[in-house]
């Protein structure tokens, strides 16, 4: 049953991939959605049976790579963490599949799109269900591949093709870290199965654990778009919006968080790695949020917002609150998925327009989209009692309680900014006066039902996702469900932090204060956005010109892309060209570099003006040619010279007795 979860989408992908172009064409969605739906059902089935009997188990398929003593199986692990992820992935995935039917309708690569999407589901499910690191890595790279394919789905656009390549390459850098971590783990444990590694993790030295932790986090940086490897995610918005929702918001980008949570046992031994992770997370959150403040492209804002929210998740994991991180991962999947889908609905309605300056007042034309979008905005901004509030607040609280006051401050500030830019987005898009081009205005329409139904379902989840599994969430079902998977870490954390846990059992005054701060931040952001964009729409422009330097800096995203380009990419290419020159001239030349002198001296003697007629062998050839020329010039044609050479030969032989130690 577990095997079916990834297998079904794989089949769907294969069918659509092989036969889509010729035979299936417009009906590709039946295959894809069917496969995904069945996969979801399988996940639900597994999940419920797991709930009945909450005991982790592994399902072995076959031996994948076996070279003594390395044995790696294709096997699945069913435990709370993987089940939660599987549910999120298949659930959200299924919704987005449905959404895509409407969204991608009429696209030339319809079957291709669904094949990729199914392939993505397979890879992602392998990633979350894997029972060992290598299989996880397979999924990890697999989702990268699908991300590449889907970002570049409209490959006729150069920007899309570039973005796809960038995504894959940046991810590969991260993957390099991942795989090195994998080697370190194997070197220590002689196994790559999670279970074996976790049971031996306590024996890791701090240094090793830190190295592994940081390398794994490098992998996560790539996949989950953290500084400095976040640059691909904003560009990834070149793909279809449904893809952005599924891959670049709800599922794939959160793989890093999942992976970190999966390795909690190792991180527990590496406080330095944790601190590093928390700091990176917090800085990323703030950094991305600040960029999001001024972006005009609706998807770009959402993209930076995703980066920022992912920063939150790593902050959470970094301070040891893995469960909170996972919780936020789940709620984020709901509301960010919803936001993207909503924006997709808008873009769809506007015929591809993504600039918010050409939107406004869309509420009237597309009520369902507007309503669900508003819900999602409220959720992400952290307005209680929506889902986002609970998870975000929990992260901030955990950060504060674990003693990272500065990080908490950053987090709170980010929350304020999040609220501001999200409401800015909401107001600019759906409220206020319409700035839509006139020729587009009368085309405006609400999206078809395949789009609105997923929106509604996600909206529901965004509202209740936080409290549905129990109130307050900290003591709710999810936490109870997840903590066994991360129990080892709690154990370790107790050793590390002593009694840090004790406050979690009741809503203390501290909790309430922190909660108030985050609500306050959210509301402040809301109010500011309201003032700026609904009451005084001229104000943002004025501020922008007044704070021109900051605005330019933010608007250009700190020029990070440009810096990367000039610091890494261009020099690398230059190096490549240099090396090529070297290859053309150098290596063959080096071989006889020393002998060149001989050639030179031969040339100097003036008689030789040889062109290399055949040009057949480069420099060695030339060298021999020179010698050839010298040697054959000895052959003067004069008989007496020949006789002289003979006589000299005899004389040399005769005198050699003085040099050869030979005794009569």
């Amino acid at each position: 049953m577990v095997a079916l979860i990834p297998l079904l989408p794989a089949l769907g992908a294969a069918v659509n991939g092989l036969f889509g172009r010729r035979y299936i064409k417009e009906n590709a969605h039946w295959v894809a959605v069917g496969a995904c739906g069945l996969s979801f059902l399988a996940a639900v089935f597994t999940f419920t049976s797991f709930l009945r009997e909450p005991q982790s188990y592994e399902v072995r398929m076959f031996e994948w790579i076996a070279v003594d003593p390395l044995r790696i199986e294709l096997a699945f692990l069913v435990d709370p963490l993987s089940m939660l992820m599987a549910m999120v992935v298949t659930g959200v995935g299924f919704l987005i599949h449905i959404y895509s039917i409407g969204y991608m309708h009429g696209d030339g690569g319809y079957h291709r799109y669904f094949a990729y999407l199914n392939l993505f589901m397979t890879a992602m499910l392998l990633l979350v269900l894997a029972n060992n690191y290598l299989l996880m890595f397979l999924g990890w790279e697999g989702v990268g591949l699908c991300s590449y394919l889907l970002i570049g789905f409209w490959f006729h656009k150069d920007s899309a093709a570039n973005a796809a390549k960038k995504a894959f390459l940046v991810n590969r850098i991260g993957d390099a870290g991942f795989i090195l971590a994998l080697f370190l783990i194997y070197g220590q444990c002689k196994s790559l199965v999670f279970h074996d590694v976790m049971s031996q993790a306590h024996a890791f030295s701090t240094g090793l654990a830190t190295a592994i932790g940081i390398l794994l986090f490098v992998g996560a940086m790539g996949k989950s778009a953290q500084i400095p490897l976040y640059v691909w995610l904003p560009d990834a918005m070149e793909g279809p919006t449904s893809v952005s929702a599924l891959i670049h918001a709800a599922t794939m980008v959160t793989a890093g968080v999942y992976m970190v949570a999966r390795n909690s046992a190792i991180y527990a031994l590496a406080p330095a790695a944790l601190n590093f992770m928390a700091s990176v997370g917090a800085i990323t959150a703030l950094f991305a949020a600040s960029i999001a403040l001024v972006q005009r492209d609706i998807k770009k804002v959402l993209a930076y917002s995703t980066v920022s929210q992912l920063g939150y998740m790593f902050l959470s994991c970094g301070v040891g609150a893995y469960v909170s991180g996972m919780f936020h991962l789940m709620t984020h999947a709901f509301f960010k998925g919803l936001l993207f889908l909503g924006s997709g609905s808008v873009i769809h309605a506007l015929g591809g327009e993504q600039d918010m300056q050409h939107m406004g007042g869309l509420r009237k034309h597309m009520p369902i989209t507007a309503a669900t979008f508003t819900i999602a905005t409220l959720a992400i901004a952290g307005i209680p009692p929506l889902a986002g509030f609970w998870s975000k607040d929990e992260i901030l609280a955990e950060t504060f309680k674990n003693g990272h006051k500065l990080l908490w401050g950053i987090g709170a500030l980010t929350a304020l900014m999040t609220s501001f830019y999200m409401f800015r987005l909401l107001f600019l898009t759906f409220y206020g006066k319409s700035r839509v081009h006139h020729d587009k205005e009368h085309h405006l329409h609400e999206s078809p039902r395949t789009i609105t139904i997923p929106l509604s379902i996600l909206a529901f989840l965004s509202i209740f996702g936080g409290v549905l599994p129990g109130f307050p969430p900290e003591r709710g079902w999810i936490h109870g469900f997840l903590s066994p998977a991360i129990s080892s870490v709690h154990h370790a954390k107790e050793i590390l932090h002593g009694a840090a846990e004790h406050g979690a059992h009741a809503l203390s005054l501290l909790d309430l204060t922190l909660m108030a701060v985050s609500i306050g931040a959210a509301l402040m952001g809301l109010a500011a956005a309201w003032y700026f964009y609904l009451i005084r729409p001229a104000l943002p422009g004025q501020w922008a010109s007044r704070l021109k330097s900051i605005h330019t800096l933010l608007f250009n995203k700190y020029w990070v892309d440009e810096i990367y380009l000039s610091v890494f990419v261009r020099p690398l290419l230059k190096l490549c060209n240099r090396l090529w020159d070297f290859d053309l001239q150098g290596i063959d030349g080096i071989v006889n570099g020393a002998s060149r002198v001989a050639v030179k001296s031969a040339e100097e003697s003036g008689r030789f003006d040889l062109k290399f007629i055949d040009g057949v062998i480069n420099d060695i050839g030339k060298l021999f040619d020179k010698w050839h020329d010298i040697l054959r010039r000895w052959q003067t044609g004069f008989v007496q010279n020949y006789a002289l050479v003979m006589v000299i030969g005899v004389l040399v032989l005769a005198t050699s007795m003085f040099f050869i130690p030979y005794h009569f």
Partner: protein
Amino acid sequence: MNQTLPNFPLSILYPEMILTISACVLIFLARAFARAHKHTLSSIAFFSVIAAMGCAGSLWNFPRWENLIEFFLIDRYAIFFKLVLLVICALTILISKRFLSDTDTERGEYYGLILLATIGMMIMVSGADLITIYLGLETMAIASYILAAYFRSDERSSEAGLKYFLLGAFNSGIILYGMALLYGATGTFNLAEMHRIVSGLSGPAELRLLYFSLILLVAGFGFKIAAVPFHMWAPDVYEGAPTPVAAFLSAGSKTASLAVLIRVFTVAFGLFTELWQLWIAYISGLTMLFGNIAALRQTNVKRMLAYSSIAHVGYMLLGLASGIEMGSSAVLMYAFVYLFANIGLFASLILLTRNGVPKESTADFSGLSRRHPLIAFAVTIFLLSLTGIPPTAGFIGKFYLFMAAVKSGYIKLAVVGVLASVISLFYYMRIVMAMYMEKPADTDAAALQPSTSLGYAFSIMVFVILAVGIYPGPLLDLARESLSSIKILS
């Protein structure tokens, strides 16, 4: 030398006698045949060589091959070389026919001189006595001078003859002086006796004489086999001489002189083995390098072949330097293997000659594969064999040589050797390139028609090269056996 001729079976002299009679017939009675019977001339020559070959072969198991006549040995070593020389002679006759009729110079003297030179060579390899050797050598040399200058009307041929003669005669003087000193040191001309006496020599004066005679003989025979630095005549003579003559000289006179060199040095200079091996080693290295580098960009294929034959002598000397047992049998092997490819290439030059106009540049080979694929294939096999690429005989020859060199510890020399053969690949492959990868140079290049005799020659040579390359065992055994007969002499 107060020997009365013993009662020996005349059959041991049959090969030489057959050839002599045939040569006399050809030279003196050629006029009688007139021009109408051109086929007869070459047929007489060819079949007498075949008959001689048969007689020589039948001597292989001759029961008492030690000192039957004191100055004329019929040991397996001699027979092996006689057979090789007769093969060379036969092939030369086969390839000459077309060339001579093309240039309208087919005369009895030509074949007669070829046979005479062969007789000289055969006497050389049978020589058990310095005087016999000298006589054989001069018989060969005088005939070759004339052959080189055979095209009287051709400036280049005459010049080649003149140069060959002047230098050859000069060299005879050197060899003779070496022999005189050797005689002075030992008081005998007989090699076997010399061997006995030399091992007992102790007086410094005698040793010094021996030493200088060694130097002179190295130079003298070095000249004959065209080893650096005594090689200078070879390129000019081969280029100028008529093509079949060049083939004959580069294969025959070299092989014969090498045979004598091995015999004289191993037998007479056993005392100095290490010394002359060292010299030969140096000469070998120089020769390999020089020959190959000088051949590198020759556009005249004949001249290129001249240099390449110098280079191949270098390889053979490598074997000689590597000791008596394995090294010398490798030399025998190589000499045999080399002759086919070498004559084959000269033959291809003959084939290209059109209406008496020599086509000797690399460019003349262009597009040969389209004009005559089989010939192109054969030439490729010859070239591969010369380079030493399996599955040709040349590979086995080189392999065995390098094996001997490694065995006796001449690693550096072996490295030089293998690198030199890599260099040689370059110029050999240029011909392959021209044949297969370039368009025919002249537009009227119709399909080439090899004459029957040339066709036979080509087939024989290709067959032998491939057969020896694939299954060299018998030849190796043959070479070893013939060499072991030298030891019986000593």
